[in-house]
C-alpha cells in the first residue's frame, strides 16, 4: 500500500523488497525532490560518479597519494527530451570540497550548511577498515560527497551562489576565484569569533534552546552510533560461527550412511546463513551514514547559534557604548559626577577644566553619540535580519531533518524485516534437510 501524503514530492517507500541500491536512491530522491521547484536541480543533474587515485606534490614538496572524485553535471532538459548526451565532468579532491564548504559557511552565516562526510573513518565496527584508502570507505565517501552537493544544490539560498556553480563546472582556476572573494580574511575573523569567550545578556531564547538541542542531539546520536556498531560486531560473530556447522556437517556426512545427505545439504544452508550477514551489515552502514550526517549537522547548527550570539553581543556592546557616552555627556553638562572615574578624581585634585575645554569635549561626545546611534541602529537591523533569515533556514532544516530521519527509521525497520525473512528462509531449508536425516 502506497501512502502518498502531503506534497507529492514525498515518496513513501511502498514495499519491503527493495535492493539496497533502490533504497539509497529512494532516500536521495526524497531529500532532493522537495526543493526541486526552487533550486538549481531544476536545471541540472549532479552526481559524483567515481573515485580515482592520484599522486602529486603537496605544499611541502613531498609526494602524496590522494583520491579525486568525478563530478558530473548534465542539464535536466537534455534528458527529458529522450536524448542523453554525455555529462560534463571534472575532478575534485576532498580538500576542495572543504574549501567550498568553508566559503559557504563564511558567506552565508545564517544558513545551516550541510556537512561533509568524515575526513577519516571514525565510528566503525571492527570489520570495517579505518583506512582512508580502503575501497569501501572511499565508496561511502563518494556517496557522502554527492549527498553534500545535492543538499547545497537544493538549498533555496545556496544554490544560487556563483562559486558553487563554478565548483561544479570549471575545474581550473576555481580555487583562485574563491580566494579572490576575500573570504579568507572573513574566515579567519569568524574562527576567532567562534573561539572567543563572551557573555551575551539577552540572547533570543529560541537560539539558546536550539543550542541545547544540538548538544543533546550530538550526544545521543554519537552514543547510538557507538552502540549500533557494537551490536553489528556481535551479530557478525553469531552468524559467522554458524559457518563452522557447514564445514563439520560436510565432514560428518562422509562417515554416515542414512544421515549423510541430510547433513550435507543442511551444511550448505549453514554456510549460506553465515555468508548472509555481510550484505546485511553493509546495508546497515548506509543507515549509520544517514545518522552520521545529522550528527555532523549539529556543528552547523551550533555555528548559526554562535553567530547569533556574536551579532547580539556586538549590538549589546554598541548599545552599552552609546549609553556610556550619553552618560558622560550628561555628567559634563550637569557638572555632577555620578560615577567614580579617574577623570573625576583628577579634576578634583588638579582643578576643573576650563569652559572651552568642556565645550570641546561636549562636541566630541555629541559626534560620538550620533555615530553611536547609527551603529546601534545598524547592529539592531543586522541582528534582526540575522534572526529572521536564520530562523527561516532553521525551520527549513527542522522539517528536512524530521522527514529524513523518519525515512531513515522506516528504512531501518525494512532492513530488519529483510534480515528476518532471510533467516526464516535459511532455517526452514535447514529444517527440511534435517528432516531427511
Amino acid at each position, binding site marked *: 500500500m502506497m501512502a502518498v501524503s502531503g506534497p507529492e514530492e514525498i515518496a513513501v517507500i511502498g514495499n519491503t523488497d527493495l535492493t539496497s541500491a533502490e533504497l539509497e536512491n529512494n532516500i536521495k530522491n526524497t531529500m532532493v525532490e522537495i526543493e526541486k521547484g526552487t533550486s538549481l536541480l531544476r536545471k541540472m543533474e549532479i552526481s559524483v560518479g567515481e573515485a580515482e587515485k592520484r599522486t602529486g606534490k603537496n605544499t611541502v614538496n613531498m609526494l602524496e597519494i590522494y583520491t579525486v572524485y568525478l563530478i558530473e553535471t548534465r542539464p535536466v532538459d537534455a534528458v527529458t527530451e529522450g536524448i542523453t548526451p554525455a555529462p560534463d565532468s571534472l575532478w575534485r579532491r576532498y580538500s576542495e570540497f572543504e574549501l567550498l564548504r568553508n566559503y559557504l559557511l563564511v558567506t552565508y552565516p545564517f544558513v545551516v550548511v550541510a556537512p561533509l562526510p568524515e575526513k577519516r573513518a571514525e565510528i566503525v565496527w571492527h570489520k570495517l577498515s579505518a583506512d582512508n584508502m580502503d575501497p569501501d570507505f572511499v565508496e561511502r565517501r563518494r556517496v557522502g560527497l554527492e549527498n553534500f552537493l545535492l543538499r547545497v544544490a537544493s538549498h533555496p539560498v545556496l544554490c544560487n551562489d556563483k562559486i558553487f556553480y563554478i565548483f561544479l563546472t570549471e575545474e581550473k582556476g576555481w580555487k583562485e576565484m574563491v580566494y579572490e572573494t576575500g573570504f579568507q580574511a572573513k574566515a579567519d575573523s569568524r574562527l576567532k569569533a567562534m573561539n572567543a569567550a563572551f557573555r551575551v545578556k539577552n540572547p533570543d531564547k529560541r537560539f539558546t534552546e536550539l543550542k541545547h538541542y544540538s548538544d543533546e542531539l550530538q550526544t545521543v546520536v554519537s552514543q547510538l552510533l557507538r552502540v549500533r556498531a557494537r551490536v553489528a560486531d556481535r551479530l557478525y560473530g*553469531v552468524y559467522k560461527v554458524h559457518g563452522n556447522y557447514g564445514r563439520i556437517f560436510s565432514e560428518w556426512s562422509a562417515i554416515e550412511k542414512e544421515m549423510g545427505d541430510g547433513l550435507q545439504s543442511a551444511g550448505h544452508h549453514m554456510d549460506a546463513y553465515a555468508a548472509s550477514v555481510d550484505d546485511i551489515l553493509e546495508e546497515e552502514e548506509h543507515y549509520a551514514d544517514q545518522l552520521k550526517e545529522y550528527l555532523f549537522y549539529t556543528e552547523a547548527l551550533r555555528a548559526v547559534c554562535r553567530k547569533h550570539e556574536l551579532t547580539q553581543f556586538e549590538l549589546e556592546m554598541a548599545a552599552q557604548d552609546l549609553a556610556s557616552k550619553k552618560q558622560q555627556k550628561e555628567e559634563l553638562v550637569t557638572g555632577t559626577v555620578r560615577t567614580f572615574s579617574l577623570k573625576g578624581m583628577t579634576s578634583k585634585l588638579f582643578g576643573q577644566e576650563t569652559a572651552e575645554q568642556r565645550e570641546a569635549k561636549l562636541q566630541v561626545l555629541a559626534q560620538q553619540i550620533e555615530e553611536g546611534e547609527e551603529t546601534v541602529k545598524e547592529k539592531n537591523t543586522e541582528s534582526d535580519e540575522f534572526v529572521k533569515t536564520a530562523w527561516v533556514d532553521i525551520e527549513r532544516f527542522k522539517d528536512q531533518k524530521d522527514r529524513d530521519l523518519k525515512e531513515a527509521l522506516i528504512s531501518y525497520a525494512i532492513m530488519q524485516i529483510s534480515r528476518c525473512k532471510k533467516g526464516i528462509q535459511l532455517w526452514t531449508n535447514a529444517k527440511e534437510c534435517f528432516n531427511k536425516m
Partner: protein
Amino acid sequence: MSGTIDGVVSPTQTITIPADISGQMLDLDEDDDLEVFSKDATLADGSMFNASMQTSPGSMVNQYKFEEDEEGDSKDIFITVDNPESHVTAIETFITYRVLTKTTRSEFDNSEYEVRRRYQDFLWLKGKLEEAHSTLIVHPLPEKFVVKGMVERFNGDFIETRRKALHKFLNRIADHPILSCSDDFKVFLTAQAWELTTYKKQGPGFLSRMGETVRAVANSVRGVKNRPEEFTAIQEYVEDFSNKITSLDKVTQRIVKEQKEYLEELKEYGPTYTLWSGSEEELVEQLKGVAGCIERCCKETEEQVGHLSDTLVPALHEYVLCAETLKAVLRRRDNIQAEFEAKNEALATKKVDRDALKEEIDKLEDRVEWANNALKGDWGRWQRSMRGDLKSAFLSTAEKNVDYYEKCLAVWETFLLSQRTEPSEETDRDDTS
C-alpha cells in the same frame, strides 16, 4: 571364586533372548539369594536365560532382536527423575533426586516405587551394568564435575541439566531389552536407601577386583591380533564420530556465547532510541517505536538462546560422552579377544595341562563370540538412537530459529504498518488504523 566375572556365560547354560523377555522373568527368584548373586556374577546373566533350552552360542546372533519397539506399545516400565533436594550432613552436602518407577513387569512386586538416589548411586549402577555386560552400550551419565561454565555444583541450571540427563540415562536402560532386566537395575529402582547400601557392599571383594584390573591391563598391553574387520570399521567410525561431535559441541557452545554477548549489546541499544525521543518532537513516535521493537526482539533472542542451551547443547554433549563409552566398549571387546588369543597361543607353546587349558579356551571362545554378538546387536541399536536423538535435536533447533525470526518479523512489520497508515499531515488519526 575369582576371575570369572565380566559376563562370562558357562557353556552349560543356554541362551535365548526373545524380543519380549518379560515372560522369562517368572523364573527368577534371585532377589532372595544375594549371596549367590555376589559370588558368581554369571547368574546375573544366566538368570535371564531359560535354562531348559539348549541352543548353541552360534545361533545367538539370531536371537538378538534389538529393533526399536513400535512407539512404546510394549513399553512396560516408566521412570521419572525429579524433585532434587539438598541434604546437609556433618561431612558433606549433596543432592538427591526422586526416582519414580511405574511398571507392570511381573518381576517387580509392586507396580509403583518411589526412592531417592544421589549421583553416586547412579555411578554405581552404571559400573555394575558395564561390569555385567562389558560389550553392551550403556548410555552415558552426565559428568561428575563441569570444569568450565558452571562452577557451583548447586547452581539451579546445573542441577536441572543433570536431572534431565539422569532421567534419560534410566529411561535408556529401561528401553534396553537386556539391560532393563538387570538385577542391579531393579534394586536401584526399588530398594530403600539402607537396603541399597547393604546391597552395594556385596560384590567381588577388593582383591578379586584388583586381579581383574591387572588382567585387563595385561590384555590391553598384549593387544588383539586378529580383530574382525567389522570391529575395526566400527572403531574407525567411532574415532571420526567422536571428533565431529566434539567439534559440534564446541561450536554450539560458542554460538551460545556469541548470542549472549549480542543480547547484552542489544539491551543497551533500544534505550538509546528512547533517550533520543526525549529531545525530539515530531520523531517521538518513530523513535519510541523502534526502541519498542528492539526490546521485544531482545526477549525473543533470550528465549532462543535458552532453547539452544536446553536442547542442542545437552544433546551434543551427551553424544560426546557416548563416543567415549563406545571407545571403552570396543576396548573391552578387544581385551576379551586378546585373552582368548593368549591362551590359545599358550596351548601351542607351553607345556601345561592341556585338557584343563583346552576347557578354559573353549569357555573363552564362547565368551568372545557372545561379546561380539552383544556388541553387534547393540551397535545397530545405538546407531538408530543416535540418529533419532540428533535429528530431533537439530530439527528442534531449526524450528526454534524459524519461530524466532518469525516473531521478530511480526514485531517490525507491525511497526512499519503503523508508520504507513498514519497520515503525515495533521489530520485526525482516528480515520486510519
